[in-house]
């Protein structure tokens, strides 16, 4: 709560700056139009025009908010939350791929991290390639993934989820390797004096002490999953989902639509990451790890 005022200030500053930028960026078009129509624009007219264009270079904040409202809450009020024009519908499509991809990605990431920590061969051979894998532009191989999976009869949610998993596994691997290696040699020695099995060492020491790292990785992984799901939506024909909204918005120069889909995605990400944050707080508290 004590962050409320600062955030409000920053948001206000951004909004003010944004309105100004909208005037600056859209003025040329407004003036061109005026010249073509042979009229002279006064300053207030110019400002009003720049804040209400149909295809602005930069939509004014209220235009985005109105669009967001019209495509979410307003539709929900009319009982059309799941209509194709509703961002709730598209958000839900993206969300389902995100969640599935997140589960697959973090699952794979954790397994890989366990492998790296427990098997020296994996430690030495996999890490450089995991880094290299993240330098591959996902947008380039996403269509191939879709096509290849298609040829073995997998389509729909799964290919999107796989792309989203591809983006989310890496931060989880990095974080969890760090986490699983975080026990000090003292803590490990303690278990050796009990002659504990590797299994017991994992469950009673490595896993619990990696929990803070796990949550940090989960948060990054969740955000990455969302980006992955959106990218995955493009080559499936970009028919539904927030990614599709952005792309079709882009085909038709509907900047307001792009921006509202962008914000919807960011809000979704904030909610998902926030949910993990809540889980983190309560679990770490129960584990006695947050003061």
């Amino acid at each position: 709560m004590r962050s409320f005022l600062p955030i409000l200030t920053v948001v206000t500053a951004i909004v003010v700056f944004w309105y100004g930028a909208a005037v600056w960026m859209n003025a040329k078009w407004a003036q061109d139009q005026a010249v073509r129509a042979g009229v002279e624009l006064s300053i207030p007219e110019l400002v009003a025009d720049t804040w209400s264009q149909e295809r602005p270079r930069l939509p004014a904040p209220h235009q985005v908010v109105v669009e967001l409202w019209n495509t979410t809450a307003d539709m929900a009020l009319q009982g059309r939350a799941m209509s194709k024009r509703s961002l709730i519908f598209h958000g839900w499509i993206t969300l389902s791929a995100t969640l599935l991809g997140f589960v697959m990605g973090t699952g794979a990431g954790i397994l890989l991290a366990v492998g790296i920590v427990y098997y020296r061969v994996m430690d030495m051979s996999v890490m450089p390639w995991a880094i290299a894998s993240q330098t591959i532009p996902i947008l380039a191989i996403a269509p191939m993934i879709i096509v290849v999976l298609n040829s073995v009869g997998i389509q729909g949610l799964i290919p999107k989820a796989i792309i989203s998993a591809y983006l989310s596994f890496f931060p989880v691997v990095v974080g969890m390797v760090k986490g699983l290696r975080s026990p000090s040699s003292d803590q490990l020695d303690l278990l050796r004096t009990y002659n504990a099995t590797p299994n017991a060492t994992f469950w009673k020491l490595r896993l619990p002490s990696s929990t803070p790292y796990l949550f940090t990785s989960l948060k990054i992984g969740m955000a990455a999953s969302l980006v992955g799901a959106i990218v995955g939506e493009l080559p499936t024909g970009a028919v539904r989902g927030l990614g599709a909204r952005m792309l079709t918005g882009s085909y038709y120069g509907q900047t307001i639509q792009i921006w509202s889909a962008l914000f919807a995605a960011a809000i979704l990400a904030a909610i998902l990451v926030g949910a993990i944050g809540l889980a983190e707080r309560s679990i770490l508290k129960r584990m006695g790890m947050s003061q």
Partner: protein
Amino acid sequence: ADDVTLQLKWVTQAQFAGYYVALENGYYADEDLNVTIKPGGPDIAPVQVLMGGGADVMIDWMPSALAAREQGAPVVNIAQPFKSSGMMLTCRKDTGITGPADFPGKTLGVWFFGNEYPFLSWMSTLGIGTDGGDDGVTVLKQGFNVDPILQGQADCVSTMTYNEYWQIIDAGLTADDLVTFKYEDQGVATLEDGLYVIEERLDDPAFVDQMTRFVRASMKGWKWAEENPEKAAMIVLDNDETGAQTEHHQIRMMGEIAKLTAGSNGALDPADYERTVSTLMSGGSDPVITAVPEGAWTHVITDAALN
């Protein structure tokens, strides 16, 4: 019923009205077909989907289909509902462009992804280089919208008569502000939306039969769409899952599309094919196809379907 999957070249819009009409009006069902239409988009190479087994038949432009054929993807044209090309270059008048002679020194937006070939052969017939400089043109890989011309980043952009051109108009420029160069008029037109399948599948009589029925129903859909542009546009809208299309734009698009399908009964006109091939082979230093293709089209399906 037999399952048939059709891969489109672009997103759901009136450009593909015939197929959606055939689906909604039950023409496919009448032919005992269970048709799925997969929309395309800028990241989708229909040929890849076809080769990967994700579709039975695709809509593609002949330049990219022939290029794919040379790359080892044996696709065959089985029908050609589009008679004429809708591609053109649209320029702002205030750039001073009145004819192709004014292009040197200008910046032109071009679609790539297999759509650049007609443009490149046009430039090579004009003798204009495409590497920038004062006597060449600077080429931009244009995105999926018409922003570059609106924002003044390009002097000309590629447009389709049925779509992007109207987006420029909708954005506030008027026809008087613009100069257009239709590829048809420039003698470099290539065949657009045709139906293609994988060659070896045509050895299977059952598949040939399916395609025959498919083409027959599709052409019926096209004729209905030409006669009922507004209703056809509404059918397209109903099938648009993105919820991004507008009625006004789709009705207008349907009207323009009808001009392109007019004159085709679905069968490929070999003369159009020859013209396309020669345009592509003259593509300057880097021709799209290096050898005259063999067996890139067949009349087997249309002969059976249209009798």
